[in-house]
């Protein structure tokens, strides 16, 4: 069996196909090292994804350089490759992990299933008690997130909006107004 001669392949194709290839390696590491487990996995996953981007960027530069085809015309292919690499993580992988881990509604559905199908008033009461405890945790978690992202700061027991938070909120509100949308 012969391996295809990768050095003969067009540099654009190599740059484009290397993006999903490097992402697959990153995905294998996520699965093998159980990086999605634990409480604060999001920052860890983003960091690891960024770490795997470095060899991808280097390979995208070194391959055309080594084969004597490095030119500015490869920049659009590299831009598309970067978009493919980051979108596979942020749009597809994180959507699945976010749905399974963070979605409030999905967690309620999951609890209805695990708390015995919710048959009868007693089961419904048990579910509501369980969800109440979790909602308090979610509220605290999101408040922390606001401070971690620099949108608010905690002073004593008070949360104060930062200029960054005010700017982001204004931007979001302007977009919602332009699109004629209302927060749910």
């Amino acid at each position, binding site marked *: 069996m012969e391996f295809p001669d990768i050095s003969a392949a067009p540099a654009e194709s190599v740059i484009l196909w290397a993006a999903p290839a490097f992402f697959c390696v990153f995905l294998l590491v996520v699965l093998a090292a159980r990086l999605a487990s634990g409480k604060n996995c999001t920052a860890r996953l983003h960091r690891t994804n960024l770490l795997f981007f470095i060899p991808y960027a280097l390979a995208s530069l070194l391959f055309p350089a080594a084969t004597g085809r490095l030119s500015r015309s490869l920049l659009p292919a590299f831009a598309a490759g970067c978009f493919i690499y980051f979108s596979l993580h942020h749009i597809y992988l994180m959507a699945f992990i976010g749905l*399974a881990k*963070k979605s409030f509604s999905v967690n309620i559905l999951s609890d209805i299933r695990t708390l015995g199908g*919710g*048959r009868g008033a007693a089961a419904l009461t048990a579910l509501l008690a369980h969800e109440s405890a979790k909602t308090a945790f979610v*509220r605290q978690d999101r408040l922390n997130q606001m401070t971690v992202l620099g949108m608010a700061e905690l002073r004593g027991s008070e949360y104060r909006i930062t200029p960054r938070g*005010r700017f982001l909120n204004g931007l979001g509100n302007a977009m919602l107004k332009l699109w004629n949308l209302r*927060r749910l």
Partner: protein
Amino acid sequence: MYATLTLSVSFFTAAVAAHLVICRATGTGRFMLKGLLTGFVCFACAAAWEYSAGAPDLVSLYLVLTLWLTYMVFFINLLNSVTLKMLARLAEEPSGTLTEAAFQDIFNEESAIKIRLQDMRVNGFIKLEGGNLGLTGKADALLKIVFLVRRAFSIDFVG
């Protein structure tokens, strides 16, 4: 490659413009359905264009699809994110401050659970008959995927 990028961005921009017009005319109701339909039409048009021009360019189709999903994810977060709702509430205060206790009154357990349960019932995920709460087939199918993802990625902490 320039042609691929130009084509993807052109179809995506046209879809955003169409979605903007639709949203301005119809508001927030059925946001997901309208977004998915617009995205599907945009993707189908891009595929038809590619097919009519000869060999379909998979990179271009991937870019169109993913740009649209990125746009949808952005708006879904803007509309639903609890963190952004908290931020909006904080920004509404003239002093720009709120105590932890005030957040507890605004985002309390009762209203949060009630709203979600009502949404899930309207969207056909749960059925509430008398005192009995049950999952629909749609919810079962969704949970199968969720449990599979949790198992595959060793997700042991949710919330």
